[in-house]
């Protein structure tokens, strides 16, 4: 037993060197599982290469045997019509061999698997980790930082080099949180709290999307993690904690009045103004890079297009077109653009 454990450990070590081979060069895909950017994804990648190697070897052996059997098995020319090959009914030794060898391989793979599960599948928050609550909605993500008093949406901002502990919950149906370069996926299930963790080793933007079918706009439920350095994160969290900015111009003032008087306020929170919970918190919406859970980039034009007719940009989403007049639209856009 000890020997077998040692072997499985060696197999794991052997794969670490293979892991450094860049099969998918960065830039080919921002979501490739073969380009991990943190320990949670790297652990998985190690074992993935081992398994790809073992299965590829099995595949080569079996398919070669098939090829040889086919080539050698061609019916010899000039055989009399009734001639049959030797009938072999079986062989206990041979059959025992191809029962035992796969059993050994399977046993080793099981040990390796259990090992990585033990390393990666944490059941409690690691020391020093930053706790973030993730709440899946049809079809956007809510992020809450309970220790920091921050509520935001769709873009998870984290400090680089620190473990992030995610507590996943759902407001409606099942979703799945998956940013391939940072960690494997974990389902988000109503009435359950599931957990996962990751750590980004370099600053940058990491992309992903919901990986459990969750209804009409499932394809538009994108994920985005921005890893920034500790100082920038400190500044960001201070800004996010502040109350939403007051309008700074007359038109923005009118925009806030429109926002409060129409249905906007019943779905969206703007701290100090409204406390709707169905849609994303907009207190600092202008600090984000995208709109509609990643559907479009955040810009004045796009905010206008989005509010005017969200269904044209993200079909099936729960935000209705309120039929604002061009004046009202201009005012609301001016107000939102000021919510930094």
């Amino acid at each position, binding site marked *: 037993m000890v020997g077998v454990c040692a072997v499985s450990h060696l197999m794991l070590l052997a794969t670490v060197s293979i892991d450094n081979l860049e099969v998918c060069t960065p830039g*080919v*895909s*921002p979501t490739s*599982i073969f380009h991990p950017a943190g320990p949670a994804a790297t652990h*998985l990648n190690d*074992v*993935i290469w081992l*398994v*790809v190697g073992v*299965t590829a070897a*099995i*595949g080569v052996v*079996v398919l070669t045997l*098939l090829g040889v*059997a086919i080539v050698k*098995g*061609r*019916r010899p020319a000039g*055989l009399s019509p009734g001639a*049959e*090959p030797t*009938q072999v*009914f*079986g*062989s206990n030794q041979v*059959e025992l061999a*191809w029962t035992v060898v*796969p*059993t050994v391989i399977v046993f080793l*793979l*099981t040990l*390796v*698997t259990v090992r990585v*599960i*033990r390393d990666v*599948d944490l059941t409690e928050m690691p020391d020093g980790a930053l706790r973030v609550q993730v709440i899946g909605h*049809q079809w956007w993500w809510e992020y809450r930082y309970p220790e920091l008093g921050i509520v935001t949406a769709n873009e998870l901002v984290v400090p680089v080099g620190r473990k992030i502990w995610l507590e996943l919950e759902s407001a*409606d*149906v*099942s979703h799945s949180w*998956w940013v391939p370069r940072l*960690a*494997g*996926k*974990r*389902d988000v299930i109503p*009435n*359950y709290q*599931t957990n996962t963790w990751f750590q980004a080793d370099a600053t940058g933007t990491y*992309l992903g*999307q*919901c*990986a459990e*079918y969750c209804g*009409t706009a*499932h*394809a*538009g439920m994108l994920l985005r993690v921005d890893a920034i350095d500790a100082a920038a994160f400190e500044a960001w969290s201070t800004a996010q904690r502040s109350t939403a900015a007051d309008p700074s111009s007359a038109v923005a003032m009118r925009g806030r009045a429109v926002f409060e008087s129409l249905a906007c306020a019943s779905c969206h929170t703007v701290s100090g103004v409204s406390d709707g919970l169905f849609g994303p918190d907009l207190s600092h919406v202008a600090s984000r890079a995208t709109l509609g859970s990643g559907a479009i980039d955040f810009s004045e034009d796009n905010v206008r297009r989005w509010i005017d007719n969200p269904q044209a940009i993200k*079909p*099936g989403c729960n935000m209705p077109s309120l039929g604002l007049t061009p004046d009202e639209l201009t005012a609301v856009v001016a107000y939102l653009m000021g919510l930094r």
Partner: protein
Amino acid sequence: MTSLPATPHRLGERRPWTAVVHEWATTVDHKRLGIMYVVTGMIFLVVAGLEGSAMRAQLTFAENKLISPEVFNQLFTMHGTTMVFLMGMPVLLGMANFLVPLQIGARDMAFPRLNAFGFWLFLLGSILLYFSYLGAPGLDGAAAAPDVGWFAYAPLTERPFSRGNSTDYWILGIMVGGFGSMTTAINLIATTLCMRCPGMTLMRMPLLTWMMLVVAILILTAIPVLTAAQVMLLFDRSLGAHFFDTQNGGDAVFWQHLFWFFGHPEVYILILPGFGFISEVIPVFSRKVIFGYPLMVAATVAIMFISLGVWAHHMFVVGLGPFLNSLFAATTFLVSIPTGIKVFNWLATLWGGHIRFTASMMFALGFLAMFVLGGLTGIMLAVVPFDWQLSDTYFVVGHFHYVLIGGLLNAIFAGLFFWFPKATGRLLSETLGKWSFWLLQIGFTLTFGPMHISGILGMPRRIAYYEPDRGWEIWNQISSFGVIFQILAVALFAWNVITSLRSGRRAGNDPWDAWTLEWATTSPPPEHNFDTIPVVGSRRPLWDSKHPEDPDSSYGA
């Protein structure tokens, strides 16, 4: 019974069409029911194939607007549901219906009228499911067809998230068809256990019959669990129960357990009959007895037991905890041992044979190659950390299409080319068959191979559109391109069937020089199958009669 003709009508004989329809509609003959199952299933193959082709068209370009997300979500739901319940199950149960009584030397199934009842239930269920396109619309914003995925995860299926009636049609259609499958399973078990001809001991049954017996037991174990879950869901939706209604304390993971307790054995319900066809076709065209018959039987039974204990490998990303994840990884690895045994035994049967490359044999060899590849990606997915990355991605879609299309569909074509002459009295065209074979293999590979790569690059399943910056577009375009070859292959097969029925070469009783009992009677067989009930002394009764100097019985087989 006396009013029915003693034999099926002869080809080319002219009678009023009403008489023909009446004869088929009222038949309790296992062979006719089998043919009706297979024909219905192949029609649904075309329907589901067109649904799949529409999805491929949409995914050819990033951010494509050809098909709306609402319609796309209905397409993948109907494609999956149709392929599993309306194509796979009926074709395989139909072939079991046709072949099992013939292979064991029986005159019919144990309960012929129950058999007919099962077929008509299946047809009713199928029609109910597709009737949703007409019957489900009405409420504003309600889906016209089921759009909850073939796995119908709660609580997406509950009233608050699935308005209208489309989910109810999905439940009822599958449930009614499920009762049909259960009656057929009972019938198959009774038939194989009680109706075998003299000398046909269990360990002399042809492997196809063995595998159909195991499949029937699996159906009886797995389908009732799905039916029970569907009844609970129906209670939730119609009577205000809260089994899976998470807004009132229901449990979404409970549905996943119930569904996959059915869903994983279902995979083996689909693939084991394929193993059965291969186990008949490879020996006959290698001209060798199957290698290691007892171990093949043991492996089949082992697969049956193991397949009932692996369901949570569909739920590795749910967060069941390290213990359960490790346990289900171990049981899943275990399945690869009996499956590997089968593959090696087929290879050993080929080894040193005199292979005849008929269309049927080529499909069987195609099955072997494709199934091995699909099996290996299956091992990868059993490695839980791998699964955390690749579960619910196109890698999984590629994996199971290698198993179920590259594997099972190849096996079905191998079986259809092999037994078509027995069912109709005429041979299919070998030339057209080989064209179909190569087109299909090229199509499979082009469509399903690149899906592994798009999955590795992070593309999830069931998305109606995708972002252009992900590097997925080229792989999706290759996938879509492959569809053309598959459509051609299936169209060519349909043409082959139509022309061969009219003018195919006469088959005679035993066109392949085969060894099991179905080849001892005429093609097509008379309604009573055998004029006198055969008596067998080994696993290959026709080998014994063709080689009286060297019968199998002298080797204890």
